[in-house]
């Protein structure tokens, strides 16, 4: 695993933006680094919607938001001095989303954290960068914490948790 191959987990949160800003300050235009942006789609629950059409529309809207967020993060990195050629972006649709039909790869959605680590391993990324929400105990119990789970489960790689 190459520590200069960095994976940045990206969603539409401010935490992801902070993680990108930090990575840009550290890496800048240093040769030898590569930054992989990974966005795992989290579609809205199907049961929330009256019918498939409404759910599909919501999934499309969510995908639009997340792709836009990924684009914004890439812009943050470039503005921070990282050459665009050093950045690659991956968007993995959820297997539960109608958007995933025909996709080569889809996210099972059972654990975002474990899927991030699996992706990092497959790409040979030796550093994983993730933002941290700063959750209460009650929130961690109910919602889980992606960053905590990454820290607990990471093997053979370095994890940067940006608060």
């Amino acid at each position, binding site marked *: 695993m190459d520590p200069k191959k960095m994976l940045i987990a990206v969603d539409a949160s401010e935490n992801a933006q902070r993680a990108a800003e930090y990575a840009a300050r550290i890496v800048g235009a240093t040769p030898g680094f590569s930054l992989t942006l990974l966005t795992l789609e989290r579609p809205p629950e199907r049961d*929330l919607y009256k019918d498939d059409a409404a759910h599909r529309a919501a999934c499309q809207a969510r995908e639009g938001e997340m792709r836009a967020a990924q684009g914004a993060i890439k812009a943050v990195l470039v503005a921070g001095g990282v050459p665009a050629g050093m950045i690659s972006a991956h968007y993995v649709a959820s297997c539960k989303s109608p958007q995933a039909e025909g996709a080569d790869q889809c996210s099972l959605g059972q654990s975002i*954290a474990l899927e991030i680590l699996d992706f990092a391993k497959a790409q040979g990324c030796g550093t994983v960068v993730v933002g941290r929400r700063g959750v209460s*105990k*009650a929130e961690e*119990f109910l*919602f*889980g914490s992606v960053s905590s*789970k990454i820290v607990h489960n990471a093997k053979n790689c370095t994890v940067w948790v940006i608060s």
Partner: protein
Amino acid sequence: MRESARDLLRQYDKKFPLKHAGEIYADTTDIVRIGYGDVIELAGLHYLVLRDEIERRFGVEDVKYWVKRCRCLETNQSKILKLVFHETFPQKFGDAEILCYRSEQKEARILDMVRGDARFMQGFSAPDAAGNLVRVLDVIRGKRLDLTVEDIDADHETYFHDHLPGLLRDWAGACRAIASLHSRDEKHGDIRRDHLWIDYKSGGYTWIDFDFTFDCVESPFGLDILGLGNSLVFLAGKADLTPGVIAETFGERALDSLCPQDFSLFFRNRLVNLRTIYPYVPQSLNNVLMHFSAASEVFYESVDELLGDLMPAVEDIDRA
């Protein structure tokens, strides 16, 4: 000419007072309008509405206008019909808030999934004339777990040694039922001790009400596990041990030795650290309970993890 409810009742239920005969509803959209004496037409059968179901919790009666106690005119079987009622609301759990909602599709899907599994309520779903997915449920002949426990006439120590181990073994079976849902990527959604019934005949535990759901990605079963934890604390304590109950039972001074970390992470007035007042609670069981306390730093993520700790603790109660 279309049959009236009066015609149907005259044909199928000669004892029903015809002066109360209402309307036939093939479209159940207007849930409040449908009441006693009306007949719901669904999937080729007719269900006489007897009343709205009532939920009794914490001494309060809550009428569930969308849940109708019925009798099928053709088969004479008692049934519960759940009509479509959409509600979405944020629910507070301690300082966390979850968006909860009611989904007839989810409940219908789980009914199909658990057909023949007595650990879950049984029934089927069918669309009415307007496409509303109505769930037709068998009536459970039994008693709520919480009322069963409350009605055990014993002091806590006797209850703890003589009744609790058996209750926990049966309850663990109910937990495994929930785990079986989780393994199929479904959640119960509304685990409460009054949503678990004990069948009068078989003694089996049966979960009811699967229509609630919520959206939590990284910990999809967190709310179900919280529900199990709350039930476990209740079972072990034979009551909700609030400061008021503790003071009444042990005297005001008993409260002096308690701190906020002894109480539930989510319900700050419910004691979780039972060993502080019941010293015969084995450490192993208390450790399981403390996962749901304000002191906990680690939480169960799966039912298997919970049971992995609980079952040895039950053995410890037996040995004590």
